């Protein structure tokens, strides 16, 4: 336990990833495997169940510490975390609580982490009502105040220290001299804390694992289009593709295994089993780069991102979800063919081989795989006109790729550009603000915006919530303004004077019961703080409704457009 406390302190204080990995490596190598297994489980944040909820701990503190409930709740609002709130309030109340005499296993500083997780805390979790309250109080009394935050966290779960799964995989790979992708693959099926499981995770790669390695290539990323960089080039040297609004995926078939990696280098096989099944029909030694997107069989245009979102992060996908959110893979590049890395070849050659490969693909669900259609423009003059067609296709915009570009890694400017549609915008009035949680606790960073409705006199009605788009300085300035201009408080949220106007950008607009306006928008973000506008000059609801109606009419058009994704004539 002491080693884990020390690890937590280090991770909490370090800001650089290299240093964080180093302290993880050191921890995994130096503690017994049973403890390492628990450390891994806790850091992954994938505990199956909470031993005791934060609410229950707050109740115990309220009942025995003689603090009013509203005060505990206000404190919780300020801190943003139950376990921490309780650890901060304990010194305030501890003198009022008589020593508890409870039959707990003896707590000593040298008890290892797995003893806490497997013996002590479960024994408290199984107790009921008053017995449990007394046991928790006894635990707090028997341990140093400084350790309470961690102890409470171990009980309530939801452990976040600013280390991602990727960082943990990297540390394990480094500590036990393994390929990082192998560690990710091994962790994918979930991890149950035991010494044996930790040994399996950290064992050298076996032969089969080496043959069917799921190691992905680093993704090559596009940059927002810089017109100056292409205007002097010949438009015919570039390939144009639709930019779809799904998620980037790398599909690998090697040996007997198929892997689908997201751009964040997470394995997402579990969320998209249909794609894994079709992927197995590709010849082994194939790696495709493409887009994962929800798109019904036979339909001309994809479904919205909200449908895809329902699948993300799923461990299993049920029949309903499979039916309601049918998924496709739009391949736009071929990185490996017959187990040979072909990323150095020019894009047009890779795409030709991809076309040949797709022609041979046979599977009952073959329709789920498509090749992204690529075409050329006669001149740059047509580019923006072409981009505007994306709206009809329900695409996000265009990709502009040099026809002879190799597949590089990361964001190297000059070869691949993305040219997105301009977002829709409305000027809206700030109405409510709420403090963030965790890192953003006690700073107002979640904002709700309103438009003037169509009544006389017009009233402001909410239509969007946005979190991002302001820089740190603006956030601080706005935070101060909010504190001074609060009208009313509703728990952690406050209503503020209807005075400030912001330009809100968004990608889509649809009817929703979530907001009073009856509309909701997709990807809302703050584009600008309109210091130049008064609240009265903000947009009206009718403008938003018109945007929706315009969009409606293009949606209906989509259904009548003849050309599909693979259509070469467009």
């Amino acid at each position, binding site marked *: 336990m002491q080693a884990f406390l020390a690890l937590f302190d280090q991770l909490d204080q370090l800001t650089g990833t290299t240093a964080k990995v180093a302290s993880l490596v050191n921890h995994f190598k130096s503690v017994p495997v049973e403890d390492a297994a628990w450390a891994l489980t806790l850091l992954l944040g994938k505990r199956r169940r909470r031993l005791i909820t934060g609410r229950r701990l707050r109740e115990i503190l309220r009942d025995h510490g003689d*603090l*009013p409930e509203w005060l505990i709740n206000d404190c919780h609002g*300020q801190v943003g975390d139950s376990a*921490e709130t309780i650890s*901060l309030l304990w010194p305030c109340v501890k003198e009022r609580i008589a020593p508890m005499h409870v039959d707990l296993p003896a707590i000593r500083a040298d008890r290892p982490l797995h003893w806490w997780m497997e013996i002590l805390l479960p024994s408290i979790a199984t107790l009921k009502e008053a017995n449990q309250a007394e046991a928790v109080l006894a635990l707090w009394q028997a341990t140093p105040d400084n350790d309470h*935050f961690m102890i409470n966290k171990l009980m309530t779960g939801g452990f976040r220290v600013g280390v991602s799964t990727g960082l943990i995989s990297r540390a394990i790979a480094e500590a036990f001299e393994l390929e990082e992708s192998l560690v990710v693959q091994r962790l994918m099926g979930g991890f149950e804390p035991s010494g044996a499981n930790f040994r399996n995770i950290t064992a050298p790669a076996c032969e089969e694992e080496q043959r069917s390695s799921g190691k992905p290539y680093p993704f090559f990323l596009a940059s927002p289009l810089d017109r100056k960089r292409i205007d002097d080039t010949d438009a015919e040297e570039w390939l144009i593709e639709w930019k779809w609004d799904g998620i980037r995926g790398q599909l690998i078939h090697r040996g007997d295994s198929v892997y689908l990696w997201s751009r964040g280098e997470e394995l997402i096989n579990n969320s998209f089993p249909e794609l894994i099944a079709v992927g197995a029909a590709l010849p082994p030694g194939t790696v495709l780069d493409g887009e994962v997107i929800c798109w019904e069989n036979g339909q001309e245009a994809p479904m919205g991102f909200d449908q895809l979102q329902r699948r993300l992060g799923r461990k299993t996908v049920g029949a309903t979800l499979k039916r309601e959110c049918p998924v496709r893979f739009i391949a736009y590049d071929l990185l490996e063919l017959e187990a040979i890395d072909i990323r150095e070849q020019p894009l047009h050659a890779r795409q030709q081989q991809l076309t040949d490969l797709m022609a041979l693909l046979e599977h009952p669900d073959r329709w789920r795989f498509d090749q992204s259609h690529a075409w050329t423009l006669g001149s740059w003059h047509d580019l923006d006109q072409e981009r505007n067609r994306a709206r009809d296709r329900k695409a996000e915009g265009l990709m502009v790729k040099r026809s002879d570009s190799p597949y590089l890694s990361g964001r190297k400017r000059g070869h691949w550009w993305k040219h997105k549609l301009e977002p829709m915008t409305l000027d809206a009035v700030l109405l409510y603000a709420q403090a963030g949680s*965790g*890192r*953003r606790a*006690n700073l107002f960073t979640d904002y709700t915006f309103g438009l003037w409705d169509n009544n006389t006199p017009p009233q402001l009605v909410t239509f969007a919530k946005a979190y991002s788009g302001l820089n740190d300085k603006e956030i601080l300035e706005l935070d101060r303004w909010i504190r001074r201009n609060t009208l009313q408080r509703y728990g952690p949220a406050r209503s503020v004077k209807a005075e400030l106007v912001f330009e809100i950008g968004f990608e889509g607009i649809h009817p929703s019961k979530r907001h009073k306006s009856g509309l909701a928008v997709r990807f809302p973000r703050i584009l600008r703080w309109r210091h130049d506008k008064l609240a009265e000059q903000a947009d009206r609801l009718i403008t938003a409704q018109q945007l929706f109606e315009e969009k409606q009419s293009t949606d209906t058009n989509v259904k009548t457009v003849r050309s599909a994704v693979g259509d070469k004539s467009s």
Partner: protein
Amino acid sequence: MIERTAEGLYCRAADAWVDPWRPVARALITHAHADHARAGCDQYWAVDVSEGVLRQRLGQHINLQPIPYGEEVWLGQCKVSFHSAGHVLGSAQIRLEADGEVWVVSGDYKRDHDPSCAPFETVPCDVFITEATFGMPIYRWQRGEEVAMAIRDWWKGDQTRPSLLFCYAFGKAQRLLAELHALGVKDEILLHGAVETVTRHYRMAKVPMAPSRPVSELPRNEPLGGRLILAPPSAHRSSWMKRFKAPQTAFASGWMAVRGARRRRGYERGFVLSDHADWPGLLRTIRESGAKKVYVTHGQSDVLARYLRESEAIDAEPLETLFEGESD
């Protein structure tokens, strides 16, 4: 006796404002922090010890009447006196007495020992206007000496990197220099320019502090590994920081009691050290004042006022002001 006007807290009997936030004819100043002492008033009344910092911040030629702690002055029908608040050098609570009633405006204050300024003085009153920057029970301070020891260990624990400690330039920085001196630290501590200008006044007031020097006096290429540097929070991530190669960073503030507050600001370490009263300090002070009526300003005024009413049976209500107290 005190009413809230557009200019701030106004005492009619004395025809004066306490810490006005707009220019007025006569201002009584509790202390020289920017949210309490603003420029443009015709006449200022403040504690003599605060004169140096006040003039440096508001201008050398302001019309200032310096008053020693405890000395009674008649302004109109009102007896006015200044009493130590223990917040920073020259900080005061202002006591106003007229028609047999006593009001005290606390300004900012703390109860903890601080070797850089006079200790807090309890002033009995009928009505107490108190700050509540940290008016929540999650805020409880350790003794300054213990925090200074932790800071010394953090600094001495890395002799290769410069240690950049961010803290409020007026009050906190000098308290740290004084606490480190009390621990026997003899090393020369480096100061950002904004800290240096205030520290000068503390030295003139003969506050015992560890030796210090402005960073700007060092040659450009002087290695800074193992040195402790005090700087205001505004310098964090500014171009001023470029001079320090791979520094370790920390922030000393009451806000550091909450983990999220530290992580959001991006400091590696947070040391919980405040020049405001913590929750027990606020409650103790309010009880000791014996006030029948309490007005609560700053930060958590709603929370503290409600707690006083409901759990302590003290007649208390929040009072809206423009004091911030949050830059702590």
